C-alpha cells in the first residue's frame, strides 16, 4: 500500500515540476470537471482582436523579452488613451506603456496592476539626476490590491550607441534605482539622442515576473 501511495504522490509531484505537463494537467482538469473553457485556436491563427492589428501594417511593433522565462515576443500597439499605450500580444496579454516606461501588465501571470510613474518620467526624459517616488499596485493571489511606494534614485549614466531593428541609435543611458521596505530593483532606460524618446528599456514588473526588456522594432 505504501508503494502505491508513494508512486501516485511522486507522479503528481513530478507533474508539478514540469510546465508542459502542467498544461496536460490543466486539460485533464478541464475534461474531468466538464468545463467548457475557452478553446485554443488552431496553430498559426491569431485571435480576431490581434489579427486586426496584424492586418494593419501601420501599427507600431515592440520587441519584448521576459528574462525570467526566457520568453520573447512581438507586441503590437492597440491604442493610446490619456498617454498610456496598450501593447497587445498574440496570446492576448498586454503591457501598458507610458512614454516608454512600464505602467502596467495584464494577463502575464503576475499583475502589476498600475504604476504611478509621473515623477520619474520627467527626470528620465530630461536626463537629470535626482530622487523621486513611484507607486505600484499589484493584484495579489487573493484578489486584493496591494500598493507600495518606492523611493528611487534616477541617474544619468552617459551616452552609448545601441543596435536595434530600427538601426543603430545614439542614446543616453538612464538608471532608476528603487527601494521599498521589502523590495528593490533597478530599471535601465536608453533614451534616443535623436528623438528624446525611450527606445529600449529593462524594467522590473514585480517579484514574480522579474525584469522585462522592451525595444522598438519594425514590422
Amino acid at each position, binding site marked *: 500500500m505504501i508503494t502505491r501511495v508513494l508512486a501516485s504522490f511522486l507522479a503528481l509531484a513530478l507533474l508539478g515540476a514540469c510546465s508542459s505537463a502542467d498544461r496536460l494537467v490543466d486539460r485533464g482538469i478541464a475534461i*474531468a470537471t466538464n468545463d467548457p473553457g475557452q478553446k485554443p485556436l488552431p496553430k498559426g491563427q491569431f485571435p480576431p482582436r490581434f489579427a486586426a492589428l496584424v492586418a494593419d501594417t501601420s501599427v507600431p511593433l515592440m520587441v519584448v523579452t521576459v528574462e525570467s522565462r526566457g520568453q520573447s515576443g512581438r507586441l503590437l500597439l492597440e491604442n493610446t488613451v490619456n498617454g498610456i499605450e496598450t501593447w497587445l500580444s498574440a496570446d492576448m496579454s498586454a503591457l501598458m506603456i507610458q512614454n516608454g516606461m512600464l505602467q502596467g501588465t495584464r494577463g502575464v501571470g503576475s499583475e502589476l496592476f498600475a504604476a504611478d510613474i509621473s515623477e520619474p518620467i520627467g527626470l528620465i526624459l530630461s536626463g537629470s539626476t535626482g530622487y523621486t517616488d513611484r507607486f505600484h499596485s499589484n*493584484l*495579489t493571489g487573493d484578489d486584493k490590491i496591494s500598493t507600495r511606494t518606492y523611493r528611487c534614485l534616477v541617474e544619468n549614466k552617459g551616452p552609448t550607441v545601441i543596435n536595434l531593428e530600427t538601426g543603430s541609435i545614439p542614446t543616453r543611458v538612464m538608471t532608476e534605482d528603487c527601494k521599498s521596505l521589502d523590495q528593490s530593483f533597478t530599471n535601465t532606460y536608453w533614451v534616443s539622442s535623436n528623438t528624446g524618446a525611450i527606445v529600449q528599456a529593462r524594467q522590473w514588473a514585480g517579484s514574480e515576473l522579474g525584469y522585462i526588456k522592451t525595444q522598438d522594432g519594425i514590422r
Partner: protein
Amino acid sequence: MQERATRIVYAAGLLLVGITGASSLSGQSLTTYGTPGLIEMPTAEVMNDGELAVTASAFGPNFRYTAAFQVLPRVYGSFRYSKISNIGPSTARLGGDTFDRSFDIHFQMLDETKYRPAVAVGLRDFLGTGILSSEYVVATKSFGSNIEVTGGMGWGRLAGRGSFSNPLSIFSDKFDTRNKGSNTGGQLETGNWFRGEAALFGGVKWKINDKATFFAEYSPDLYTRESVNTGIDIASPLNFGLEYRFKNGVNLKGFVVGGKEVGAQLSYVINPAKRRVPGGLENAPRSVGQRNRLAIADWNNSEKGGGKDAVQRVLKSRLAADGLALQGFTMSGTQATVRVENDRWDVEAQAAGRAARVMAETLPPEIEELTVVFQSNGMPISRIVTQRSDLEELQFDYDGSWRTLARADIEDAHDESRLGELEDAFPVFETSFGPYIATSFFDPDSPLRADLGVQLKLAYRPTAGLTFAGQFRYPLVGNIADSDRVSNSLIEPVRTNAVRYAQQSDLEINNLTAEYMFRPGKDLFGRVSAGYLESMFGGVSAELLWYPTSSRLALGAEINYVKQRDFDMLFGFQSYDVVTGHASAYYDFGNGFFGQLDVGRYLAGDYGATVSIDREFNNGFKIGGYFTLTDVPFDTFGEGSFDKGLRVEIPLSWLTGKPSRTTVSQKIQPITRDGGARLIVENRLYGVVRDYRGKELSDGWARYLR
C-alpha cells in the same frame, strides 16, 4: 461563486499536490498524524494562517491520511482517515483491520518570544471511536534559526512509557481514570480528556539546510493495543526522522519509530490565499476612452445603417466574446442598460467591469451612465451603475480599484422590467455532455469507491425565470454497486440505501425538474421547483429569500413535499413521503468567515438544526464544516452519533489561472446516516444570489478593472 460544482475522485487536496507547481512553503514539518510537529510528537507550532496541509504516512500496520487546516492564526483542526492492519484477530471482520476517521484540534495559547517558548494545548481524535485519542500540553522554543526544542506532557496514547499518576488529580479525583471506547463514536469524548495517567515527551528538530531537516524525539507511545496482533515492535522510546523538501514544495520524510519500525510520509502545504497564477491569464481588457472614434463607427452612424439595432448587434457579439450573454438592452438620452447572464467570470465584479468596458467601447459618445444588470436564469438580481467618464479616467489609475468602487452604485434590481429584451434571448437551450466521477468514501471494505461514466445535462428556458432541466448519468465502470453495505438504520432509510440505488439502476435520471425563479418584491427572491428533485426524492419545493443588497444577513424559508424514488432512479416512487423544510439564516462575519443556521424538519421526519461555518478566501477557495443535531437519539442514529462533515471548494480558475464558474468541490462526511439528512435541491437561492449582492461584488472589486 459556483454554478456547476463537480466532484472529483481524489480528495481535492491530493490533486493539488500535482498541479501546484510553485511552492508555498510555511517552514512547517508535519507528523505522521499530519499536524505540525516532529515524527509522531506534536510541537507548539502552528502553520501560517489559512494554510492547508495534506499528508499521507505509513509505518508498521499504520496508514494515516490527514488534511489539516489553519482555521485561525492560533487554531488548526484536522481530519484523518486511518487504517490499522490486523489490529484484531484475522478471523474478525475485515481480517482484523480497522478503519477510523478522526478529528484533532490544536490551540496555541502563547507565541514564542525571545525568552519564552510557544505553548499550545491540543486534542487528537477527540470525536472518534478513540483509538488514536490523546491530549497534550506542549512548549517549543527555537535556538537560532536552525534548532527547535520541544517538551510536553501527554495523556491517553501519549501516556505509555514512563507514565505517572495524573497531576491534574489535585483538582479532582475524576482525572485519575480514563474510560475506553464508551460510545458509538462521533460524540465529544469530554469525559476522557486529560484523564488517566500522564507522561512526558520531547524532541529536537534540526534544520540542516533549506532542503533537509533532521528530527529526534522521545515518544511515550507504546502502541499497546496494536502490538497484540499486528506485530509492531516498539523496542525503544527514541524515534528518528529525516525530511527532504522538493523544489515544488512536496515534503518526503523517512523515519524509524521505536527503533525498528521504518516508515515514510509525503506531505504538502497549500496556501489557499494564493491563486496558482496571481492576476490570472485571461485576455487583457480593451482600454476605453476614444469616444470620437466611436462617433464615426458604422454601428453608430445612421447614414451607414447604424442605430440601436446595429449597436445591439455589436454589443451582443462583444459581450459574448467576454463570456457574457446579452438578454436585454435599452438606451435613451445619456443612459444605457444591459441585462446580462455571466457564464464565465468567477469574480462577479470582474464581469461587471468587463460589461461596462464593452459598453464604453461600443456605445455612441453621448451615453454617459452605464448600467449592468446581472441576471441568473433570467431573474434580475443586482445592477451596477458606472459613469463612463470615471472608467475612462480611472482605468490606468494606480488606485483605480478603490476609486471606481467609490464612484459606482450597486442596487437591487427587483424593479428591472423586461423592456428591451432581446428577441432571441429566450428560449434558451443548453446542453452539456461529458464524463463524470461519483465517489463513495470510507466503506471499510474499500475506503474509496468510484463510478466513472457519462453525463448529459439539458436545460430549456422558454422565458425569463422558467427552466426545465434534467441530468442523466450512465455509469460505465466503477465499484460503488459492489459494496455489500445494507441499511441497518433504525429510522426511515432516507440515505443509507445509496448502494441499492447504485445496484438497481442503469441509466440514472438524477434530476428532471421544472423550476421558476422570480422577484416577489424589493430584496426578495422566490423559487418554486417540481419534479424529480434529486436521485432519491421527488416532489415539490418552494423557497423565499430576503437579502438586501448591502446586507451581511440573509434570511430564507423553504418548504418541500417529497416522496422517495424507486431504486432504479427512473420515474417510479416508493411509498415513503414527507413534508420537510427549513428556516435559514445566513451571515457574513467578515474576514472570510460565513455562517449558516438551518432549523427545521429533515427527510426522515426528524426535527433539528444544522450549523455551518465556512472560511472563504477572497479568491473563492473555500473550506468549511457543518454538523446537524436532531431529535434522533445518538444510539438510534448509529455509528457517528450525528451527521457532520467537511467541505472543500476550489474555483477552477484558482487552479488554471483562467476564469471559469466551475468549481472543484468535495464534501467529506465521515459517515452517511439517515438522521439530519437534508433534501438536495438545485439552485437554492442564497447560492444563486449571494455572488451578485453588494458585499461579494465589493470584495471582488480588485478585479473590476482586470
